């Protein structure tokens, strides 16, 4: 009962936030100084084209009505039309989103596969050379921006060693092996920052757990250290680690914009950058709204997962 009401509360709480988020996204077009039509089409566009765009964007109506109209269309999945591609924005996003999701989930997977073992070993071997190496590695991961690590990875693994392709994308459904080869460098680039920050969090969290009384009890009753760490301490330190996943997902989606640009990865990030360069504001709005919605959904899912993982929320 408590769980459902907790999650229900979270869902209800998301509604005003979604409303405010929609205002921010709406503002992207309507806050442009001067005439948005000038900004999008250029000042010397044909009069008829300008009038058509003005009508399409509803700029001849009062602001509140423009917003209500826009929100109504968005709620029905109509994100408007791309000015450059002359295509519905929704189609463009549906076409590009799978590549972005493939990149971000692979990056998250790589990050977790690196971060959990590294963080656990660093905490267990605290103040040894292993710990130092893991922490230096994590700090470098956090500090080296993806636009440099990506370039260096291309330099080493594509241009010098020739092991992997420098850039591009192959659909996993077309050729899974080739797709994997194209995926490795971008996913590693995007995942390295998350790997660094999660390693640090896991280590800090586990160190805190290892100092608790129940760990001392487990040790004093003769459990082997491996059992103490893995069965007791790691399990408890997982709970706070899960809560950062929502934040990390948001960071990954933001970082994907840059990673996609480095590796010519045809995702929504690239779509957004091109939209800015081309002043194709409906596309930019659509991408930002889609990503913000995704982040909100993931955060809600993380809340639900938190309830599953932490029995205190279920039983109290």
């Amino acid at each position, binding site marked *: 009962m408590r769980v459902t009401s907790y999650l229900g509360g979270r869902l209800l709480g998301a509604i005003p936030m979604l409303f405010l988020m929609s205002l921010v996204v709406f503002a992207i077009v309507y806050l*442009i100084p001067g005439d948005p039509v000038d900004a999008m089409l250029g000042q010397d566009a044909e009069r008829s084209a300008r009038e058509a765009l003005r009508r399409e964007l509803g700029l001849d109506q009062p602001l509140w009505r423009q917003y209500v109209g826009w929100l109504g269309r968005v709620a029905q999945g109509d994100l408007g039309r791309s000015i450059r591609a002359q295509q519905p924005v929704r189609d463009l996003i549906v076409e590009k989103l799978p590549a972005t999701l493939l990149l971000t989930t692979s990056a998250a997977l790589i990050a977790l596969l690196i971060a959990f073992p590294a963080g656990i070993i660093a905490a267990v071997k605290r*103040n040894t050379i292993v710990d130092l190496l893991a922490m230096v590695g994590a700090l470098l991961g956090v500090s080296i921006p993806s636009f440099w690590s990506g370039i*260096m990875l291309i330099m080493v693994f594509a241009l010098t060693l020739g092991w992997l392709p420098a850039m591009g994308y192959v659909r996993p459904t077309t050729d899974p092996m080739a797709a994997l080869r194209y995926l490795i460098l971008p996913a590693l680039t995007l995942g390295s920052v998350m790997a660094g920050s999660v390693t640090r969090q896991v280590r800090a969290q586990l160190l805190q757990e290892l100092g608790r009384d129940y760990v001392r009890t487990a040790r004093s009753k003769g459990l082997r250290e491996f059992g103490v760490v893995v069965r007791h301490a790691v399990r408890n330190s997982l709970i706070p680690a899960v809560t950062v996943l929502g934040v990390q997902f948001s960071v990954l989606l933001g970082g994907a914009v840059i990673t996609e640009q480095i590796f010519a990865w045809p995702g929504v990030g690239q779509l957004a950058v091109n939209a800015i360069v081309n002043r194709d504001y409906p596309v930019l709005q659509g991408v930002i709204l889609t990503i*913000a919605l995704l982040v909100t959904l993931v955060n809600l899912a993380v809340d639900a997962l938190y309830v599953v993982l932490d029995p205190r929320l279920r039983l109290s």
Partner: protein
Amino acid sequence: MSSSTPASASPERRPAPEPPRHRALGRLKRSRLALIGLAIVGLTALVGLLAPLVVTADPVAMDFGALLEGPSRAHPLGTDQFGRDVLARLVWGARLSVTIGAVAVALALVVGVPIGALSGYAGGAIDNVLMRCMDALLAFPALLLALGLVAIMGPGSTSTTLAIGVVYTPGVARLTRGVVLAERPQEYVQAAHALGQRDRWVLLRHIMPNCVSALVVQASVNFANAMVIEAGLSFLGIGTPPPTASWGLMLNEARAFMSSALHVAIVPGVAISLAVLGWNLLGDGLRDALDPRLTE
């Protein structure tokens, strides 16, 4: 993460009680990593500040007789594809990066702290409305929000700075609100009220000083992230416009030439990574030294 020495944590070896601020300074001084961070941060800031004195070469002057040259006496870090001096661009890039970082972080503090303080102290509907607005901004990935804001204002250093400032405002507001909420029910606050002190005075004089530690830590982390976003936007071609020297722009331009002239891609990359590393190290050190939860 925590670089506090075990000695400072064991009760029997702790020295005689000192004022908390001195203890924090002492811990910061003992943390070698934090000092390295401070040195890097200080050096970047100094180089940026004194850019015209550090290098004499013009960062935007082209020399088509010296394209993509390696290091030489005339150009210690070589030249780029337009024959511009890489060292000069690096130094002026530091100036840009540090300036944008500092102004953006200051902006986030100037706007975020009052919002957070008001929210936490007033509570009720004001708190609800303000925090929902902050949450709505936090729901956007930082880089994407900055991207959208720059799209509104048009590319350039000023809009980049403003955008980054807006991006970090909600975090600052949330943090401030958290501390204010925690301090408000404390006895010293009630005592101040009982003495008839006004709300504004209580908030400014008694509660706000407790936010300083948390805000200092947050500001140093924000500074690191602000530098990354500034370079990232320039790298994407929507931040600082050419030919201004910006580390992100240098990296973007270097991509086309990296197989023939690696130095143009390595120099700005090392610079930005080192600068960010410096702020992160300093942030870690400050957290260990100032965060009251880690003192015990």
